[in-house]
């Protein structure tokens, strides 16, 4: 017993606290990337998921509990995207600084206009989100909205560097607006492009670019596509052809590949978030890459 206590003490002795000012825990990589833009070098930023993970399905792993225990700021999407693990993490992490209602807790979905708010909330409809579709970051204008709030929180939590955070925000907004103009000009010929998506993860991108979603492979969100529903989608596509099937990098490729085989449509694996492919290394790269992939499929001839 005594030996065991010594062992624990020894463990602390060899794990010294790092010298970073703020510790930021984000649920998804897009918020980690945003925090990196806005917070600068003096912070320790951690993302609970990578671009290859489904953010619905994470478990409250010991490593995540340890990270949240020391966080000064938690940035998550909210709108129940993390309903299966974030509440559990909060209760296990024993960290009152990052509980809802504190400046150290931020849900991005609280600060953007939500789409696809269901009029009926019933699990028979699949994995529905009562507060609306949580995949908000696929519209870069939402990133800008959340940036404002993140920057304000950083200034609240670390008032000594408030000026620096404001400068960083202004700098980021300048670069982001320039990039946005460029993306929108590149995307002008995508308007009205008919597409099929695997999961309902793209509504914000679709609305931003004016794409037209013909069908969704998951008959009900979160439930794997069934063969019967896929056949229906294939039949529908014969009447009303789409240009491309969109799939997030973390999603299983079988359903979209099957449909591609059947219909001859191309499949585009979009990075979905930062780290979703090797070129999407930051937020700018994410949208550069998304538009590059989409543009490849803009012309029926293959472009």
């Amino acid at each position, binding site marked *: 017993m005594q030996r065991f206590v010594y062992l624990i003490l020894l463990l602390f002795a060899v*794990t010294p606290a790092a010298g970073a000012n703020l510790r930021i825990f984000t649920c998804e990589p897009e918020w980690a990337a945003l925090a990196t833009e806005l917070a600068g070098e003096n912070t320790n930023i951690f993302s609970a998921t990578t671009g290859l993970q489904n953010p619905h399905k994470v478990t409250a792993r010991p490593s995540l509990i340890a990270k949240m225990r020391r966080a000064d700021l938690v940035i998550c999407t909210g709108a129940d995207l993390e309903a299966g693990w974030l*509440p559990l993490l909060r209760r296990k*992490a024993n960290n009152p600084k990052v509980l809802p209602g504190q400046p150290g807790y931020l849900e991005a979905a609280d600060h953007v206009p939500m789409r696809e708010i269901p009029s009926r909330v019933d699990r028979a409809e699949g994995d529905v989100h009562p507060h609306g579709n949580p995949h908000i970051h696929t519209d870069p204008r939402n990133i800008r909205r959340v940036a404002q709030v993140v920057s304000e929180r950083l200034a609240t939590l670390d008032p000594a560097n408030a000026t620096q955070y404001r400068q960083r925000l202004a700098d980021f907004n300048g670069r982001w607006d320039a990039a946005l103009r460029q993306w929108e000009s590149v995307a002008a010929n995508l308007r009205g492009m008919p597409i099929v998506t695997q999961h309902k993860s793209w509504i914000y991108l679709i609305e931003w670019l004016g794409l037209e979603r013909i069908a969704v492979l998951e008959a009900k969100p979160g439930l794997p596509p069934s063969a019967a529903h896929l056949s229906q989608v294939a039949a529908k596509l014969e009447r009303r052809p789409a240009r491309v099937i969109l799939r997030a990098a973390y999603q299983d490729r079988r359903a979209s590949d099957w449909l591609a085989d059947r219909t001859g449509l191309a499949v585009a694996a979009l990075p979905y978030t930062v780290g979703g492919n090797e070129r999407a290394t930051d937020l700018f790269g994410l949208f550069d890459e998304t538009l590059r992939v989409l543009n490849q499929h803009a012309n029926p001839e293959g472009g």
Partner: protein
Amino acid sequence: MNRHYSLIISGLLFGLMSAPAAASDPDIQQLRQELELLKQSYEERINALEARLAQMTQERKVSATAVSPPVARDPGARALRQGQNAFNPGIAVILNGKYNDYGRDPNDYALPGFQLGGEAGLSSEGLTAEESEITINGNIDDRFYGSLTLGLHQDEDETEVELEEAYIEATGLAGGTGLKAGRFFSEIGYLNRQHTHTWDFADEPLAYRAFLGKQYTDDGVQARWLAPTDTFVEIGGELLRGTGFPASGADNEGKGAYSIFARTGGDVGTSHSWRVGLSGLWADARERGSSGDEHGHGGGGVEPSVFDGDSDLWIADFVWKWAPDGNPTERNFKFQTEYFDRREDGTVAVDDGAEISGYSGEQRGWYAQGVYQFRPRWRIGARYDRLSSTNRGNDPEVLAEAGLLSTHDPSRASAMLDYSRSEFSRLRFQYNQDKSRPGEADDQLSMQYIMSFGAHGGHQF
């Protein structure tokens, strides 16, 4: 809109109050009446406007299914007019039903070398609604969280309501500390803390059956501390009343058991994660009966017995999970194992206390299991259990009657296949080759459904 009217009204009120004090009583009376009328007419108009607003929102929502207009999720803007219901806690209901088929007589079930206590034993043969569970939880205020779990199950011809858990947690403590009080599943071991419906097999490991009466729950207080390290390190302890098996009788003035636990864990790359834990439970048992005499399970060839003394238990646990790129949706694998070691010292009595013997028990047990999700919705699993004991006493006949002397080491091998339509429903088939008792193996077959609805449960590690 609403706010404007209340502003006007309060402005009027304010004006009234600050009216010259010289105003005569009839004047005030008249003004009051006028104000009353004004209030009434405004209230009517406000109600009418609200009704229109509600109707419009409804219409908008109906049309929203096609292309929904962006709606800001500003918490203030969507304050719901639900009165008391706005503070409804999360409610989750678990429905659990089984069909069990046993090769040998389940009434004859025993684990030689171990006193069966608590809920230990085989689940009813044939069709059974087993156990339903209702959990209600929510934040009490900014400092406390509360949770209540009721288990409903059939015992003979009565439906029993069992208070499985009823606890509060302090959420606002600094320094990584957590406090819990009430009735709860002890944090010892790995599986003990988890509700049975999240277990990967239809029944408990033999070690849980033998050492913890299926699952150890008790009244008490618990303190946990999380180390401020990148590696997960958690230590904690519990002071417990001492009523749940292996404790009994709320000894030591209602503080009959205490426990400590320590665990550490982390990730290896993005695909692997693990947890290792060690825990101890020291329990005083006052007149701890075997479940054979109370519930009818157990029995056959074994006399009901009563134990008085100390029961000290150590548990070591290890869990390892794999998911490619940390994404368990398609495929994942989970391995878990726990080792139990117990010392008991005291007396054992049979025949209503007529025969008594000193007793010193040394018991060990372990299980190991692996569960593999080989495609979305489908999982297979295998488990192996083993127990052994070296019990001594000054009257071996008494120990033998109580089923505590045995040369047979109970063991069991299980295979499982389950299908989950969504994360809220699961159908399971399980086969056990059960060698709990000496003699031929018992072929046990279970079919089970576990369904949950209501609040979303957590994805525990």
